[in-house]
């Protein structure tokens, strides 16, 4: 059993145009999965994902982004109650981290990758051409980051927010 485990969790509805960017990236990454990498995708984040998150040292959430930078953004996340009281339709990643900490006593290093999309108001199982280009760029970034164990905010302050070296100092071995 690997002693450092990473979870990539992409979510969205592939039947709603660019909303499927998260699962699409999860599908690409899944093909590269090794022993230390778990890849999941779903229509939405839900409370039970906290149990899976708790089993990992690093978590990378991947979602479509309506208004973020092109081609993608990557930022570090911290636990927060944001989104908990609003709707069960989509529990926020921050809220899931909060749940993970409260329920299972775990706080993995967590990143949110937002892939810029454009067409969300359609019943179409295909991504728009610009979204496909953004997906390819994001796949390259995430593949490199997972291979090198080096995540950093994009766009952002760069290495001051990075985890290059692969393993946060305070992470614990998965029992």
């Amino acid at each position: 059993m690997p002693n450092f485990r990473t979870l990539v969790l992409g979510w969205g509805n592939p039947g709603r145009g660019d909303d499927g960017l998260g699962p699409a990236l999860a599908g690409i990454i899944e093909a590269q999965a090794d022993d230390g990498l778990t890849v999941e995708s779903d229509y939405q984040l839900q409370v039970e994902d906290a149990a899976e998150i708790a089993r990992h040292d690093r978590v990378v959430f991947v979602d479509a982004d309506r208004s973020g930078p092109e081609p993608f953004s990557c930022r570090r996340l911290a636990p927060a109650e944001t989104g908990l009281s609003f709707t069960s339709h989509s529990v926020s990643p921050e809220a899931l981290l909060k749940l993970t900490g409260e329920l299972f006593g775990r706080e993995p290093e967590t990143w949110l990758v937002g892939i810029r999309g454009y067409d969300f108001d359609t019943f179409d199982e295909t991504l728009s051409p610009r979204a496909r280009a953004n997906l390819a760029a994001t796949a390259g970034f995430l593949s490199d980051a997972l291979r090198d164990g080096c995540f950093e905010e994009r766009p952002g302050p760069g290495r001051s927010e990075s985890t290059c070296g692969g393993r946060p100092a305070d992470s614990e071995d998965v029992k």
Partner: protein
Amino acid sequence: MPNTKTERIVIEPVTRVEGHGKVTILLDEDRKVSEARLHIVEFRGFERFIQGRPFWELPVLVQRLCGICPVSHHLCAAKAVDGIIGADELTPTAEKMRRLMHYGQMFQSHALHFFHLASPDLLFGFDAPVEKRNVIGVIAEHPDLAVQGVMMRKFGQEIIKVTAGKKVHGTGAIPGGINKNLSIAERDVLLAEMDQMLGWSLEAVKLAKGYTLDNIDWVAAFGSFDSNHLSIVRPDGAMDLYHGNLRAVDSMGDSIIDQVDPNDYLDVIAEEVRPWSYMKFPFLKKLGPETGWYRVGPLARVNTCDFIDTPLAEGARKEFFEAIGGGVGAPCNVTMAYHWARMIELLHSAEKIGELLHDHDLQGEDIVVPPGERREEFVAMIEAPRGTLTHHYRVDESDQVTMANLIVSTTCNNEPMNRAVRGIAEEHLSGVSEITEGLLNHIEVGIRAYDPCLSCATHAMGQMPLEVTLQTADGQTIDRRTKP
């Protein structure tokens, strides 16, 4: 002389229900409620979207339109396609694998609703601070319940994963059967948790029962009204969430329709269109649109069935009617009793899952039957977590879908939810010029009892505002509140 000057209070969207909704309360010039409407932004375009697609794609295609209950659409469409190809009797392995998938869906959906959506209201009260009235608040004071909710939901999702193939775009049900059985290894992983899930389900029934009876003085009246109730039932009258014929009873328990084949639904059900909502309002033709509306979902199913064929849930059903039934043979019309009924179904689902996991048919190799006599039209029904789901398709000689009519559970509960909102608003909002958080939540709690699925919205980052607006009849905004 009728009042012509009204004000509108708009609550948008409703929190902790699936999707987005907007509540409009029309006040007259005396600040009394004149009308209440739940606007549901359901995108009806998917029925059009389906047209022209090959019918064998339907089981996979339709589930992509909803992130909330894809399994229900997957299975209902599969049943309809079985009918089109003339596969009228599946193999035991296929039938039981589909049922396992369905009970897994029911189990996870009911657990999520009770432990993480409804329990904050039930445990802390409607007027508790909003920052406490969520799952983190439940964790702080009832950590065992919060963990149970997560683990029960996860158990149900694992069942879906091993029966449907995967969580997104499951492909388990195919025309005439299924595409995989359940391996011994998959079965044993689930069986290892079965006793725990059954125990937690029993405790959940106890919790819902205790809450209802401890608060019966106000629960009995909160958003309640007499209504008809509808579901499918087995030919012998037993609750059957996967397959059966239509039955409806009135508020006194008298039969309205019974054992109507789903293919004959248009003989007994019609849909009314109203100008202010995208949703249709189904009603029983025999009674007409004014009195023929009906409730569906857990409360309706417990009311319409004669018995439940699993011992623990049947015992819980009997306790339910002894405590809160409407009298000998009469249904329960208490809106908040949806929660108790939902937990009875949670227990029933757990018992069914346990039965199925011990059934060696799930490891059978005979998983698909050959097509029989082809049909051009078929109607399938299933009891989704929120109520009766109908899929009606017509296809042409080139296998393309030419017509689709889907009646989803929340559509059936449209009129009941409007009545619940109006009743609650009349009692709690009349004469109040400002919407307080507590008052607002009373309305939301009334709607939440039905566990509605309000839309198939996308969810991408950057959305999800919550805005409460007070408007005059001519659209002028006089107050606005935003929730974080």
